[in-house]
């Protein structure tokens, strides 16, 4: 008789793994209730600061929860950084990538909430902070999603919240215009994206990412897209959806207006958070699920989406950089620079799907994502500073900043250099790893990718010009008009944090890269089928045991595994004969009796 899987026990088990997301949702609700219940009568400024502090406190708490989740098991954590847990019958999975990226997203949210305290650009503070948190929840679920429907749902949650928050500066018409453009463009592209997903479901018969890859591999090995029109359509439409999200060139028209119109903290959140989540999803869908369609055999230039993505990446890089050259407005310039960075990261995505050691090839992209988003938050807080004092965000308003607040000016210089990719800073290492990764593609694929790498370097040089223009304004120009007021803590903290990150990861990139490599390793290998909810005796503990076995294989073929944070290697040593001793059940106390007996069978 089919054994009873008690859904509720499994569900309650899984809830613990999405504790950070739950915390953030509840935080959003609390902020909302606090706004309309307690501080409704207070003046807007006081409401802003109280709600901001409440949100900040909540975000720090969520950061702590996420950190605890990532501690290794014997320290009481769930070791999510090293283990892969499919949750809610496989729709989302908590693994290394999702843990690390959650950490980054929550950190960014903290910086953005701090930045939002600098000046009052709206009265609906309750809704503003709640929407920021819920957009964060959407991002975290998007990063963790393992299945097309959940992917679409979480993508929509994130973007819907961002549409609304973009239009929150009711006093300025530009904000409404930005919100509307973002919304109209977004809804059209998400409709096409959905159509693409349905085509993929039609072709493969399943919506789970690993099952799609499995189906494509079993359908015809890696024959790429030759003669497969429906497949090509599906890939094109999916690229439309993702192109919009990461603002790649053919789908970037909304980005400059939306970035410029929206209030600076929101722009930062859109430029960083939504990009991180979209790129991780892109890696999972293109790199993971649609891998077999990438290219025929190892020939990069054959039928497959590699060529298409390469072209998009090249065009995005060059367009982003050359358009940024002509910009007078800081936020618009940063918008085009973020398009350019999207181009670079696409190179990383390409590298990830063609490079030899598939398992840890996504590490450079993740590294670059983290570094890029931290530095961009710093850059946008400069824009916030401008808007707060001058109301406009032209670059020449920065004139003479070098003399008035030298410390912050130095930080801004470092940020800009890191964005260019100068050697001592993190930006350089990000690009370095990505381009190295794309160079060690298979022998047939190396030539086109080398062109791409060359184009990337050339663009970095071009980008130096418009970043340096900011420095020129700060140091070589006399202050014109009213000088910028002293940047309060709410502006200084994001800038300093971003600079510290850029410098620290620049001087000593190894730990971040290892963490990212570790993160990408915990993802199930390209061809393995993850135990799905269907088989009866599946439990999180069971998945953990399988992971241990997988890491044993990885160690067997020579990839050194150094877990981040010096946690001791997981206790259960996998003996070479492949027979594994089940590890300590992850949750002694919370485990109902019946389940433990089942495990010990």
């Amino acid at each position, binding site marked *: 008789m089919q054994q009873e899987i008690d859904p*509720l026990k499994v569900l*309650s088990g899984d809830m613990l793994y999405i504790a950070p997301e739950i915390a953030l949702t509840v935080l959003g*609700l609390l902020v*909302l*209730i606090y706004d*309309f*219940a307690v501080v*409704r009568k207070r003046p807007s400024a006081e409401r802003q600061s109280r709600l901001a502090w409440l949100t900040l406190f909540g975000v720090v708490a969520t950061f702590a929860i996420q950190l605890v989740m990532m501690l290794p098991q014997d320290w009481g954590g769930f070791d999510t950084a090293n283990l892969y847990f499919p949750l809610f019958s496989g729709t989302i999975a908590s693994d290394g990538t999702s843990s690390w990226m959650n950490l980054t997203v929550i950190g960014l949210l903290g910086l953005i909430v701090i930045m939002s305290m600098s000046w009052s650009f709206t009265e609906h503070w309750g809704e503003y902070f709640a929407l920021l948190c819920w957009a964060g929840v959407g991002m975290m679920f998007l990063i963790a999603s393992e299945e097309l429907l959940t992917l679409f749902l979480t993508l929509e949650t994130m973007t819907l919240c961002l549409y609304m928050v973009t239009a929150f500066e009711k006093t300025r018409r530009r904000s409404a215009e930005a919100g509307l453009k973002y919304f109209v463009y977004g809804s059209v592209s998400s409709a096409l994206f959905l159509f693409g997903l349905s085509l993929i479901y039609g072709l493969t018969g399943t919506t789970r990412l690993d099952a799609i890859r499995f189906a494509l591999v079993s359908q015809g090995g890696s024959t790429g897209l030759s003669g497969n029109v429906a497949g090509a359509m599906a890939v094109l439409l999916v690229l439309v959806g993702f192109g919009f999200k990461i603002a790649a060139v053919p789908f970037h028209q909304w980005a400059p207006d939306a970035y410029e119109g929206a209030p600076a903290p929101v722009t930062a959140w859109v430029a960083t958070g939504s990009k991180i989540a979209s790129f991780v999803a892109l890696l999972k869908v293109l790199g993971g699920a649609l891998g077999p369609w990438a290219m025929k055999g190892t020939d990069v230039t054959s039928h497959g989406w590699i060529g298409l993505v390469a072209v998009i990446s090249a065009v995005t890089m060059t367009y982003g950089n050359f358009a940024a050259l002509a910009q007078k407005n800081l936020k618009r310039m940063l918008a085009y620079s973020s398009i350019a960075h999207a181009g670079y990261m696409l190179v990383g995505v390409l590298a990830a799907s063609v490079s030899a050691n598939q398992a840890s090839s996504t590490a450079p992209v993740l590294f670059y994502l983290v570094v890029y988003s931290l530095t961009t938050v710093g850059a946008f807080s400069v824009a916030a500073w401008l808007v707060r004092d001058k109301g406009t965000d032209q670059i020449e308003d920065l004139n003479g900043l070098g003399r008035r607040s030298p410390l912050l000016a130095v930080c801004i210089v470092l940020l800009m250099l890191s964005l260019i990719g100068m050697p001592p800073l993190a930006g350089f290492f990000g690009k370095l790893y990505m381009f190295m990764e794309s160079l060690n593609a298979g022998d047939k694929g190396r030539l086109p990718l080398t062109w791409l790498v060359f184009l990337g370097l050339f663009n970095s040089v071009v980008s130096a010009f418009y970043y340096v223009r900011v420095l020129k304004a700060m140091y070589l120009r006399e202050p014109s008009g009213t000088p910028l007021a002293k940047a309060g803590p709410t502006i200084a903290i994001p800038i300093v944090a971003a600079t510290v990150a850029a410098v620290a990861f620049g001087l000593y990139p190894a730990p971040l890269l290892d963490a990212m490599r570790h993160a990408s390793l915990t993802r199930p290998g390209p061809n393995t089928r993850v135990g799905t909810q269907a088989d009866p005796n599946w439990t999180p503990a069971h998945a953990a045991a399988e992971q241990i076995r997988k890491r044993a294989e990885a160690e067997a073929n020579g990839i050194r595994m150094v877990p981040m944070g010096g946690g001791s290697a997981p206790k259960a040593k996998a003996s070479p004969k492949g027979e594994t001793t089940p590890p300590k059940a992850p949750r002694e106390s919370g485990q109902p009796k019946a389940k433990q007996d089942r495990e010990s069978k």
Partner: protein
Amino acid sequence: MILTQYIFVGLLLLGAIGFALAPLAVVLLVAPVKRSKSKSDTYECGVLTTGETWIRFRIQYYIYALMFVVFDIETVFLYPWAVAYGGLGTFALIEMVVFLALLSVGLAYAWAKGVLRWV
């Protein structure tokens, strides 16, 4: 077996439409038709209509429609829970309390924002 029962619904639908249109057809045969200009313009207490009738609605109706959709979806989620309630443990009750609490916060929020006041 279940699906065939909907055939009856189809039959009833057609029958109902027929039952509604039949008298209207009889009216065509029996009722007098004396057209006149004044008889065919809209009746507004005798005053001639001015301006366009199909105007844009007030935003009030849109928000009520949204509120309705939210609470209708809530019911759609409540139904399966209620059907399966017998077989589930008290955990289901706690989970549903959380669900209803979330929605009540939504209602309270709308209430506090003065959306529910029909102006």
